[in-house]
């Protein structure tokens, strides 16, 4: 690791962190006026909150998260393959064809099972 | 036909037993089938006995490679040592089918299985094969006692099963050890008994193996202090099972000691022989004394049987020709006499539904033939001259005296206890006044008489004219002892200085 790289990384990270923090400082200097309504959850003017924020929500979101996790990891497998495809040649190509076919099979299964049917 | 005789003797009952289990057959048909098979086995057994040449070594050999990986063979054979045991195992069974009639199909099936396995264990010429049959033999007994036994059968079943399986599993380790040792010495795998007998193992591991063997056999015999399962099991078991246990199973234990322990662990055997002798003698005394106090007829007979097994064991541990020959002889004698006793007891139990001695009385008046048969068997059991028991026990005591005066004297004395309680019992059961129970006791029917008669005759013949039997077993016994005596010699040479040292210290 060159010193240049370290230096630029440190400065850039520092900037990236400091800029928003400085901007947040306005919270300290800004005006302050309390109020009952300000302390309530915003509900488009509905007086009493309908339902809780920590209620259960559709399991579809979890399913989606799981699917993402799996497919994304599969995509991660492809990066090294893609970069070195020229060296791998035909064999590498065939391997990935198998891999993609398997991935597609999984996708078809998911779709057929209606996992992604949002209603 | 000849080359497969032993296999047929083993598998005919087993196959018949399995068939009985599976097929929907009635009780009587099952009994008949069992009887037919048993008779066939008797015929084959007699054929073996007659065709046995006594030339030394195994005869009727069958050998097929089985588990080549560790050199286990399916090999069978008979020699002088196993011949009589085999005969006893083969010939005593028809009686059961003829005399005890009230059992169910499963019972007969189990009985057949037991017989097959027992013959297998006796005829096996391969250690692993022996072990397999040895274990298999127990299973039908387990079911017989558990399914058809007395009111307290469950603990008794568990006791005998756990005891014997514990023993035999330890024996397995010992067997494997022997096999491995053979492999180490000879470079090839074999569990052939004849081959393994050539081994002479020493060292701590060998001693452990020796102990395992002895524990297994001592449990089967049963030898003091491994006899605690015996009274319960004998008492709770159905008579046929008791008969099998006492007449044959216990003998296989003795046979095992002679067959395996004696040659292979000659050194350890010699070293611990005295202790084992005393163990036998103590067992004799303990069981004899215990027998006196019993109120239950069967329990008494059980202790009596155990007591006499003690002397047979002593015969083995004395390690001389007389004692060994006597033991082998006594195996048959005891098998026949005890077998007959238990079977007759079974008849009493079946007909009068009691076993308490005090409930019985005056049977001799009602059933003279029964009483005579019982008397002969009883006398043979206690070793009265003129019966088979006498020859065997005489030879054993002779050998015992030769081995160690003390043991001989104790063994001889203990026999007298046997005479005491047996005669006392006989008097109480057969003579005194008859009561309501025994009033209706019918004598043996013709078939039953004919069934027991050959055995009773055998008892007497063996008592008067033992030559054909002795001629067949003596050479084998002598040959068998050869290994031990050399070791004994060596051991004597080495131990004397040791003893001197210890005395000096003292």
């Amino acid at each position, binding site marked *: 690791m060159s010193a240049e790289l370290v230096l630029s990384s440190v400065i850039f990270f520092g900037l990236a962190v400091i800029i928003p923090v400085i901007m947040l400082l306005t919270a300290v200097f800004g005006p302050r006026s309390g109020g009952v309504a300000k302390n309530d959850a915003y509900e488009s003017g509905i007086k009493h909150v309908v339902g809780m924020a920590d209620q259960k929500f559709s399991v579809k979101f979890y399913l989606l998260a799981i699917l993402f996790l799996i497919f994304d990891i599969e995509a991660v497998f492809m990066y090294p393959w893609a970069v070195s495809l020229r060296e791998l040649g035909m064999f590498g190509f065939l391997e990935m064809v198998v891999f993609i076919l398997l991935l597609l*099979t999984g996708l078809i*299964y998911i779709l057929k099972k209606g996992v992604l049917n949002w209603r | 036909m000849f080359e497969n005789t032993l296999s047929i003797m083993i598998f005919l009952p087993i196959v018949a037993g399995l068939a009985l289990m599976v097929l929907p057959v009635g009780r009587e048909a099952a009994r008949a089938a069992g009887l037919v098979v048993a008779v066939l086995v008797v015929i084959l057994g007699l054929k073996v006995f007659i065709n046995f040449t006594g030339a030394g070594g195994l005869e009727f050999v069958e050998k097929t490679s089985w588990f080549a990986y560790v050199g286990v063979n399916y090999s069978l054979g008979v020699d002088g040592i196993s011949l009589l045991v085999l005969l006893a195992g083969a010939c005593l069974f028809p009686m059961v089918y003829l005399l005890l009639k009230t059992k169910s199909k499963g019972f007969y099936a189990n009985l057949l299985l037991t017989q097959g396995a027992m013959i297998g264990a006796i005829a096996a010429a391969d250690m692993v094969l022996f072990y397999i049959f040895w274990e298999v033999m127990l299973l039908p007994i387990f079911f017989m006692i558990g399914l058809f036994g007395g009111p307290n059968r469950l603990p008794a079943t568990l006791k005998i099963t756990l005891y014997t399986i514990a023993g035999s599993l330890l024996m397995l*380790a010992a067997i494997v*050890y022997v*096999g491995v040792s053979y492999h180490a010495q000879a470079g090839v795998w074999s569990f052939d008994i004849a081959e393994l007998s050539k081994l002479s193992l020493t060292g701590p*591991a060998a001693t452990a193996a020796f102990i395992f063997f002895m524990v297994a056999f001592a449990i089967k015999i049963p030898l003091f202090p491994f006899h605690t399962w015996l009274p319960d099991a004998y008492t709770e078991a159905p008579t046929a099972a008791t008969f099998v246990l006492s007449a044959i199973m216990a003998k296989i234990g003795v046979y095992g000691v002679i067959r395996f322990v004696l040659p292979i662990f000659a050194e350890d055997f010699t070293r611990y022989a005295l202790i084992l002798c005393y163990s036998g003698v103590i067992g004799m005394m303990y069981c004899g004394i215990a027998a006196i106090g019993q109120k239950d007829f069967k329990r008494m007979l059980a202790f009596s049987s155990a007591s006499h097994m003690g002397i047979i064991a002593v015969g083995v541990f004395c390690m001389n020709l007389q004692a060994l020959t006597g033991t082998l002889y006594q195996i048959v004698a005891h098998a026949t006499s005890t077998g007959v006793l238990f079977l007759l007891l079974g008849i009493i139990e079946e007909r009068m539904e009691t076993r308490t001695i005090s409930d019985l009385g005056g049977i001799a008046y009602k059933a003279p033939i029964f009483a005579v048969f019982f008397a002969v068997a009883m006398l043979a059991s206690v070793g009265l001259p003129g019966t088979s028991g006498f020859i065997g026990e005489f030879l054993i005591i002779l050998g015992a005296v030769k081995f160690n005066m003390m043991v001989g004297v104790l063994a001889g004395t203990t026999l007298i206890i046997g005479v005491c309680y047996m005669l006392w019992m006989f008097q109480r059961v057969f003579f005194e006044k008859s009561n309501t129970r025994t009033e209706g006791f019918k004598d043996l029917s013709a078939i039953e008489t004919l069934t027991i008669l050959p055995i009773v005759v055998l008892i007497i013949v063996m008592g008067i004219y033992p030559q054909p039997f002795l001629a067949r077993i003596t050479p084998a016994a002598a040959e068998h002892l050869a290994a031990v005596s050399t070791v004994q010699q060596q051991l004597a040479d080495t131990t004397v200085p040791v003893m001197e040292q210890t005395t000096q210290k003292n």
Partner: protein
Amino acid sequence: MLDFIIILPLLVVGAGAIALMLLASMENLSEGSTALVSIGIFAFAFAVQLMVSVSGNVAPYETAFSGMLTASTFTKVAGLIILACGLFSCMIAQTYFTQNKFSSPEFYSLMMFAASGMLLLTMAAELITLFISLEIMSLAIYVLVGYDRSRIKRSEAVLKYLMLGAFAGAFFTMGAALIYGGAGSTRFALISKYLATNSFLESPVLVAGTLLVIVAFLFKVAAFPFHAWVVDVYDGAPLPVTGFMATGVKTAIFAVFANFIVLDNGMKGVWVDYLFYVAVFTMFAGNLIAIGQNNLKRMLAASGIVHSGYLIIALVAVGTENFTGGVIIFYLAAYAAATLGVFTALAYLGGTDERRDSFDDFKGLAKVRPYTAAAITIFMLSMAGIPPTAGFMGKFYIITDAIRADQMLLAVLGIVSSILSMWYYLRLVIMMYFKEPEESFEVSGVSLAPVGTMILAVSVFAIGFYPVFL
């Protein structure tokens, strides 16, 4: 191309799994036919595996796929056992689902996925392959364990299994990392080559790595310090899965464990001393747990621990030269036959929602269903190691090996544990035979499991009498 022939059964099972999964999504496959199809696939794969010719007794260095996989008679037979386990588990499942309603075709598909993982695991000759196959198997099994989502018991079982399985997986990964660090390669052949020239004990990284890997294996086979989960998980899992887990997973893990431990003599020498204690404690801990159980499945689980103990004895005794693994594989076959036998019987006796699951529930079975009782007895005897069953021969070989490897004490302790185990095996037999029946054990529906039970009962003897594996 030769390489592909070796994994042909794997491909069959894997393709079958995928095809079944797709068919399942099309929703035009009935429950019953799925079971039959999966049985067919397993049978076909079994036949293929039988026909795959593998050269003799091969040291673990003969490799395929440039060192990724190894193929020997040992792996071949392990594969056969696994496929047979799959086949019978499908039979169990078919029957089980006539009385328990939570199945779907994916169940069988997952079964096949697990089986393909196991097949790969037996052949793994490289840490990467090993890890992947381990996880293919484990993940499928996790799902199967929790397949019945309506019952919280199952969910808790799968949580427990997943937590500990992932934990073990983490151990394995770290171990693999350290081995890789020490030996510079993930291939068994190269690691072995490295160890041949360098002393094992001089590399602390390698020692630690192998330790972690072995710990992971012990976790998976429920050996002593890591055995506690198995009872709960087996109890919580649906019956067919329990059967499959108990047999297939054990077979696969022990196969790869054996392949791993024979890498190097020096390494084996170091670990054998500890495996000795592991074996002993595993056997006795398993026995102690089993004796206290009233539930049949829990008892079988605990007895599985004991059998793991025996198998570790066999591992202790394997020689690195001329390794055949025959003893291990034979014992596994015997154990699988007996265990699956009991489970097939339980599949149709268990009743709705596995109603009958304790010893007491089987009172007097022999009076009502004598053949089943006889079969269960045979299985119990085989597990207990009573001749002439396969279980006995397995134990016999293990003891022989142990004594040959100068482990007399281990052999004796094994036997002592065998004696202890008699207690709970016989207890069931006693319940079945010596007690009066309280119910009629009626079984509804057409099912394959009785057939399976009988086949297995016969095979318990057949394996014992014809030890073709050795």
